[in-house]
């Protein structure tokens, strides 16, 4: 793939599971559909404060359930649960 700005070849890199194309000339970055959102989600995860360490006496949290290969990365986007459209989705055909 050629850089749309300077026409130098672009190389693909994997950043935390997101494929990004970077130009070898001007260092510009090209994102495919959905990749900006994936990076934004990653950033939101990093900026969340680390949870306090659980006291040793408590049992470990249950293991996360199995998910398909195409499942949402990084534990999902549960911030949308209060979204009206989320409730609508659960209740419609």
């Amino acid at each position: 793939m050629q850089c749309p700005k300077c026409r130098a070849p672009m190389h693909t890199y994997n950043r935390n599971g997101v494929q990004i194309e970077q130009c070898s000339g001007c260092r510009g970055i090209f994102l495919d559909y959905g990749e900006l959102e994936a990076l934004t989600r990653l950033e939101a995860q990093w900026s969340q404060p680390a949870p306090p360490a659980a006291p040793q006496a408590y049992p470990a949290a249950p293991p996360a359930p199995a998910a398909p290969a195409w499942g949402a990365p990084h534990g999902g986007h549960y911030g949308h649960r209060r979204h009206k459209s989320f409730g609508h989705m659960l209740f419609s055909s």
Partner: protein
Amino acid sequence: MPPDHHPLLRELTARAAAVAHQVPHTAPCPCAAATLADRPDGTVVRHGDTVAKAHARDADPGELRARMETASRLGDTFVAPLSHPSTDLRGRPVTFWPYGIPVDPDAPEAAPWEPAATLLARLHRTPAPPGLPGMRGPLNAARAVTRLRAEAPDHPATTPVLKAWSTLPAWAGAEAPMPGPLALCHGDFHLGQLVRLPGGGGWRLIDVDDLGTGHPAWDLARPAAWFACGLLHAEEWARFLAAYRNAGGPAVPAAGDPWPYLDIPARALTVQTAARMIAKAVGEGRPLDEVETCVVDACARIASVEAPAAPGAQA
């Protein structure tokens, strides 16, 4: 909306009232009454303790009768229809049901996941009566894709949805028989298909339109798809799945990874959901919202991963 739609709604409301009061009824009365749904494939009105449903115009009367008889026999799983004879209204078959209290759509966190899973497991373990038609889940998925192609061919989100659809085997689009072992299935399970009977009768399933024999994992595939889209909490999905397994549900093995069995139906329901969301957004002339975008993103991921060759096979 067809031009005769509002007369249909008015007449359906009058019939519900007449059945509720067991006499022709026109005067205003203090009963709770409401339009519960108003679509070409299902107009539903309530009057007091009675619900009247006008089914789709193309509903096969014989198939609908077989589905109603099945619901009548499964009183511990389905709301049984009222004995009032089914009729016809402006070319649409009309059936009558007792009113049940639905799940509160404003409190999805209070959804009865365990009772829902137990009802589905019980349904799937019930031998299908002879002559019952096929479950219509795959047909509904295919119809949603057909509508998407017709109504939103140029929407940017249509491409990943159609690519995801192309990963699916023919049976998932009702173009080949479903793989066995087949079971008695609801065919269109979501949280709107659960009601509590008044008087503490417990939860029951409603809506027999898609009921039939089929691949039982289809009934688990909406919650599975919501989880895979990153929208349903892992904890709630785990509760639903555990309750289904505890109740002896046959759609997935009792232990181990259920996804070899769920993958194809969950892909199909993700595509169906995305297709309907896009068509709706286009119809309303608005961009996709965040939740809708999550479902389209899941379609893009589906398109990049090959589907299992058959239920139970590893991808």
